[in-house]
């Protein structure tokens, strides 16, 4: 089934591989924590996740990039979606645990490129479904 392009779906990311200025993308600074904080503000305003924020079998602080897919509240209802709220809190908790353990840090250009590529690949299916996927800048 082909999903119609949803004008209320956005991708919040700090991954430069998606390319600048893309429709439906919101670019954030500040590593994965910065991306989660922006998602937190949206979830508090009634937005909900369309893809699980803790994708990839890494603690999010090990991975310099994070790409989150969210949908705006419909109509005037901005009440918090509890499922998204729980997922968000779990993600933030995971970040805090990672920061306390000094995860991440410099890993070289080759690793950085691979992390960026892997981030795009793990979100490929999700973005495809919501018509936000396009070949990334390599």
């Amino acid at each position, binding site marked *: 089934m082909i999903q119609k392009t949803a004008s209320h779906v956005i991708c919040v990311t700090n991954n430069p591989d998606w390319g600048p200025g893309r429709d439906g993308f919101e670019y954030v600074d500040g590593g994965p924590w910065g991306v989660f904080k922006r998602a937190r503000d949206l979830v508090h305003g009634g937005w909900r996740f369309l893809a699980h924020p803790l994708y990839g079998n890494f603690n999010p602080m090990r991975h310099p990039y994070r790409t989150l897919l969210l949908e705006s509240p419909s109509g005037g209802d901005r*009440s918090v979606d509890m499922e998204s709220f729980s997922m968000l809190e779990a993600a933030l908790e995971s970040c805090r645990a990672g920061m306390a353990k000094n995860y991440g840090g410099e890993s070289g250009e080759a690793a950085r490129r691979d992390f960026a590529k892997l981030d795009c690949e793990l979100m490929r299916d999700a973005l495809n479904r919501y018509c936000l996927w396009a070949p990334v800048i390599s």
Partner: protein
Amino acid sequence: MVKEIERYGLPIVHICTIVPISLTVGANRIVPAIAIPHPLGDPTKTPEEEYAMRRAIVEKALSALQTPITEQTVF
């Protein structure tokens, strides 16, 4: 914090957005707020409408403080 203050015998009202969480942590007097980013306001309303909303919530909270309860109550 709600539970700690109540432990000293001071009645307390929890104005909060996510009522299920407040119930789970054991707050006894709960007044639902507007939204997490603006619990006692609404930037989409006019200043006068916001004031009225804020006043209503605060008055409800004050009334809850004075209301005897026997179990967790959402006002």
